[in-house]
């Protein structure tokens, strides 16, 4: 059997001296959809930040293997070029930089990394327009500066478009906080579902079971006290929907 796509071993990580991830273990194979669920404030987002390499998060011990490579030794940009994509909960605004040129830089950085010829502007715009159309994104939106003045739904559309264009091996959908915008989630779910195949995988980080009615997970994990306390299939998320997280948190 091939290497797992992602293998997290005994990972411990801290933020500002506070340990948030404690002895976390998870293996994701190609073709699988995993959901990590947990109460608000449990540090679920920390997991996505540590995996993508966001500055400010310190890994104190453990290993993460991505396609057999030591992920934690890679720069943020190389992780992305290798095929890791984070669908952000709160994408930031980049004034003055149109979506088109932003994405062209991203695509060509990835192509350069993979020793593929870079796309010229015409080739890229053609590709971008086709993919945008599939996601119901107006060509006008591609000319606007990245996320500037975008509605919540538009921001998610752009995240989905970026994912579609960059075709990651592993997408992480971070919707850790409460306050889901259902319309926005539908957009993202459509994008994710269209992209999924036997070679790609998805890690969903969420609080609400609701999201999982749009993207069906193969595995559901309950995250509490810095690690996974229970794993199961999609019926586990239904159980949580009914009984909440009380049974899994120490405090209660």
């Amino acid at each position, binding site marked *: 059997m091939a290497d797992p796509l992602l293998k997290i071993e005994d990972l411990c990580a801290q933020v500002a001296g506070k340990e948030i991830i404690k002895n976390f273990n998870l293996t994701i194979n190609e073709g699988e959809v995993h959901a990590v669920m947990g109460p608000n404030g449990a540090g679920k987002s920390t997991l996505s930040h540590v995996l993508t390499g*966001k500055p400010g998060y310190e890994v104190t011990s453990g290993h993460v293997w991505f396609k057999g490579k030591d992920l934690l030794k890679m720069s*943020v*940009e190389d*992780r992305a070029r290798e095929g890791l994509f984070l669908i952000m909960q709160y994408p930031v605004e980049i004034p*003055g930089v149109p979506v088109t*040129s932003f994405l062209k*830089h991203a695509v060509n*950085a990835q192509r350069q990394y993979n020793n593929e010829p870079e796309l010229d502007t015409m080739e890229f715009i053609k590709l971008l327009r086709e993919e945008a159309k599939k996601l119901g994104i107006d060509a006008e939106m591609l000319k606007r500066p990245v996320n500037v003045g975008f509605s919540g739904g538009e921001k998610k559309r752009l995240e989905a478009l970026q994912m579609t264009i*960059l075709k990651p091996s592993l997408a992480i959908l971070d919707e850790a906080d409460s306050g889901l915008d259902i319309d926005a989630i539908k957009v993202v779910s459509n994008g994710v579902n269209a992209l999924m195949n036997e070679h790609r995988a998805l890690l969903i980080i969420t609080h609400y079971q609701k999201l999982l009615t749009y993207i069906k997970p193969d595995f559901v994990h309950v995250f509490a006290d810095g690690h996974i306390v229970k794993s199961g299939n999609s019926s586990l998320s239904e159980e949580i929907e009914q009984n909440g997280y009380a049974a899994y948190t120490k405090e209660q």
Partner: protein
Amino acid sequence: MSDKAEIKQIIDESGDKYKYGFVTDIDSDTAPKGLSADIIRLISAKKGEPDWLLERRLKAFEFWQTMTEPTWAKLAYDKVDYQDLYYYSAPKQKVAPKSLDEVNPELLKTYDKLGIPLKEQEVLAGVVAVDAVFDSVSVATTYRAKLAEKGVIFCSISEAIREHPDLVKQYLGSVVPYTDNFFACLNSAVFTDGSFVYIPKGVRCPMELSTYFRINAKNTGQFERTLIIADDDSYVSYLEGCTAPQRDENQLHAAIVEIVVLNNAEVKYSTVQNWYPGDKDGKGGVYNFVTKRAACRGINSKVSWTQVETGSAVTWKYPSCVLQGDNSVGEFYSVALTNNHQQADTGTKMIHIGKNTSSRIISKGISAGFSNQTYRGLVRIAPNASNARNYSQCDSLLIGSTCGSHTVPYVENRSKTAQLEHEATTSKISDEQLFYCRSRGISEEDAVSLIVSGFCKEVMQQLPMEFAIEAAKLINISLEGSVG
């Protein structure tokens, strides 16, 4: 090849960030060091100038001796020893060249190396005419015949003094009098060459006009003088580029640009200033003390200054518009980028005198490294300038935490009907923005240049296409090493 890769290559090839830092080995005809009435007489004689001009020079020199160097700008630099400079240096040439074939091949090579081909057939298929100023003298002006068909005069100022004395006498010093300021006064006494443009009535100049300034000789001040006259109903777009060799000593550059815009005429003046900024520890570099001013003298006159400033160790520069004619319009679009130990005190003045005059100021300052930058702008509305309008927007972007940015807007309004708007922002490239870009595979350096280009976009859009690409590359090169 991507822009980035191309820039990398440029940097690698030159072995340094500043690719224009080479010195041309050429025999120069140089006047003795120092400044005196005799030196001024010598310069004037070498140029075969008429008496009236020599008298003006001497008058300016006399006045200059009573002036003191301004200290109000937020700039700290070693005092210039004006007696320790050469005021005239010209590449040796036996006789004045009649055509490019007679120009010293070393000089042609220099401009070629700078990316400024002077052979006409190579100059962008006839869209740009170039005047090249090397140290103190103009070495070549291209496309003169084609321009002459339209009656456009584009030549060195020395030549204009000889060939078109009436125009020069009428307009030279009429926008920036020698009494204006310390550096302008010095220039009026010792200016050596520069460009002259006259666009006749009703003519739309068929190509972009461009001057390329190059300081080569050591310890030589460059004092160019540019005079542009746009007669009624005319239009011209003028580009100016500047570079200097890399030297440990500071080089002085004190230029004057005067623009006269008559009824319904329009002048667009674009500058990409890339004088040597000094090394990363702040050693060497050009002192750029420049007075640029346009007088909109007619009805519906329009002038637009666009500048991208990445060079010089010290910049003191306020391109201004005097809006005398009714309905005249002044615009100032600026990107100033300072890195390492560069200092810039720059901005504009909009003087509203005529009725219904309007002005627009868009200033974008980017500071990185240990640099310091000040936007200093004046908007003055005279009592009779009814319905004057001004819009000012001054944005600053800081990269890192060791640089400084300051905004000093002065507003003097004496009219009840004026409408003035001012917006200012200061921002930093946020960690969140950098992370967002990097998490999409974009390197940190590319991310910074993307964010910076987004920040400057409004100004870059004002530049002619060819220039805009050049300017964007310059900004990227100047940002090298500002992150990480």
